[in-house]
């Protein structure tokens, strides 16, 4: 029983770390390979999670309809939800990209902060869409009939790791292809790349959309793991900033680093909670978890100052084509 408890705890830790690793890969497509500043990951996170939730749950009926309002409820399978999440997130990225990618890098960053905040406020205020601040609960758990409930986390971990592996391979393939080479060329020198006939704007747009679709998938995976989502979850800290720290710590521009950073920073974040709550004096419990804000913030600044390439840094890519 004791061992079972520890294993179950480790499984739920690995599920969250795996989901964050997918976000980190998505950010790598934006920032690592293309130099796009996306400070609004929380927005794509929320869109992915809510889209999948609205696609996979049925519309509430009977007594439940008095408590839960949602505009759509398609009652479709999990995979349809994940695909929908990727498409919705990609469309959002397309819109943002068309607006801001011709401007200086900073404008994209501020616009993405704005879009993430706007989405959060929107879901909070518009209760008709997805039940407002209370959010949606009881999202379906894929394949839950296959194993007894106490072992379900292990099954879901396998699903998350399968998605992680697929996305990892896809990003690696893409980045080593001629397409990926153009991305890195533009990141290094936009003028040179456009002098060589590459449409800089188009490639930036593609990178933004692809990365956002990956983030949408991760958002959907999170939604079905926690089975309950509400706008308050998609805060700048939990939804954006921690992912930046993960990628920076692991190694910007390196997919192995993106995954490693996600596991390390998530371990720091989740295990420091237990430690902090053990040592703080009574009456201080509501404040103590915020020590993690300071911790994660300092980790990011120190890595940027002392080891900007992260733990694994970018490797030298040689094209095989």
């Amino acid at each position: 029983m004791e061992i079972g408890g520890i294993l179950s705890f480790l499984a739920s830790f690995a599920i969250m770390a795996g989901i964050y690793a997918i976000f980190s890969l998505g950010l790598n497509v934006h920032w690592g390979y293309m130099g796009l500043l996306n400070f609004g990951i929380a927005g794509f996170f929320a869109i992915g999670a809510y889209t999948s939730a609205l696609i996979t749950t049925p519309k509430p009926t009977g007594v439940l309809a008095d408590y839960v309002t949602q505009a759509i409820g398609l009652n479709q399978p999990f995979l349809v939800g994940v695909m929908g999440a990727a498409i919705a997130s990609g469309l959002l990225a397309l819109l943002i990209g068309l607006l801001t990618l011709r401007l200086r890098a900073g404008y994209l960053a501020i616009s993405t902060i704005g879009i993430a905040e706007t989405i959060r406020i929107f879901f909070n205020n518009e209760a008709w869409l997805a039940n407002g601040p209370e959010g949606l609960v009881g999202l379906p758990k894929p394949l839950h009939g296959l194993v007894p409930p106490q072992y379900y986390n292990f099954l879901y971990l396998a699903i998350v790791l399968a998605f992680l592996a697929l996305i990892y391979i896809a990003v690696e393939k893409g980045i080593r292809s001629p397409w990926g080479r153009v991305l890195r060329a533009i990141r290094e020198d936009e003028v040179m790349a456009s002098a060589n006939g590459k449409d800089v704007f188009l490639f930036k747009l593609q990178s933004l959309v692809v990365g956002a679709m990956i983030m949408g998938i991760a958002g959907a995976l999170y939604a079905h793991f926690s089975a309950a989502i509400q706008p308050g979850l998609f805060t700048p800290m939990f939804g954006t900033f921690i992912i930046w720290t993960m990628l920076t710590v692991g190694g910007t521009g390196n997919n192995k680093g993106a995954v490693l950073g996600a596991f390390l920073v998530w371990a720091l974040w989740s295990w420091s909670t237990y430690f902090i709550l053990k040592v703080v004096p009574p009456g201080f419990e509501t404040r103590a978890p915020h020590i993690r804000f300071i911790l994660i913030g300092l980790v990011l600044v120190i890595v940027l100052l002392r080891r900007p390439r992260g733990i694994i840094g970018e490797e030298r890519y040689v094209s095989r084509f």
Partner: protein
Amino acid sequence: MPELIVYGIVLGSIIALGTVGLTLIWSILDLFNCAHGDQMTMGAYVALLVATLFSGAGFLQGKVGPFSFSWGLLVAVIPAVLASIGLAILIDRWVYRPLRQWGATSIVGFIASIGIAFALRGLVYVLWGPDFHFYFTGVRRMLFLPLGIKVRPDEIFILVVAWTMVALIYLFLAKTKMGKALRALADSPELARVVGISTERMTVWVWAIAGTLIAIAGILYGIQTQLRPEMGWIFLLPLFAAVILGGQGSITGALVGGLVMGIAQQVSTAWLLPTYKPAVAFMIMVLVLLFRPQGIFGRR
């Protein structure tokens, strides 16, 4: 509606105090300072700390004239401003200056500023907790003006202080040698360097001005409403939107942009829920980026 416009001018004046520093930092140090909002929070809370110490000692507890706050808070502005300047210069020394000297791109500074923003907010949460705080308790007096406008004396105080500060900074930038050098740097860093203005010596002044104004903005906002750890982050979008609307490096633009943002946000509450205020600022920013990305007073 006239009432909403008056409230908008009050809010806009507070935003304008923040934008002046933000636009100077952006144009002189080439840094989008995402920690600006949280530095505002810090200023407000340091003033709270000092004012609480005063009232704990039973010192300077009388209310100032017709206003809701005590003399203690007014005196606490000085240590809060000094702490804000000190913090800003310390962060620059520790983080931004090394990055500048290594020739790191401004984007790295941008990312670092987000880290600092969260560390500062974490500090506020840990020291003061997640609950709302107030500089004073009790009923706030109201003044009834023509056109059915109700304002509090506090809000008139906010307007007077904000625009006095703006006027002082304007005089400093227009009349003193240091101010002229700063404006030259903001206008064209390359040209300023050619005539022998050193960016590194100027950074202290930039952070001193920005730190002073943002701390006062935080305290004024605290007087108008309440203190909470997220107050600065919520201001960040309107701040950036105002700077972009005004045009990078333009002080006049920053002031006008701040006022426009304040009025637009307050007037929008006639139709929209007040929680949509940051989204309104963001929508205006998107429109500016679409139709006039260089801003009203910008040249590039």
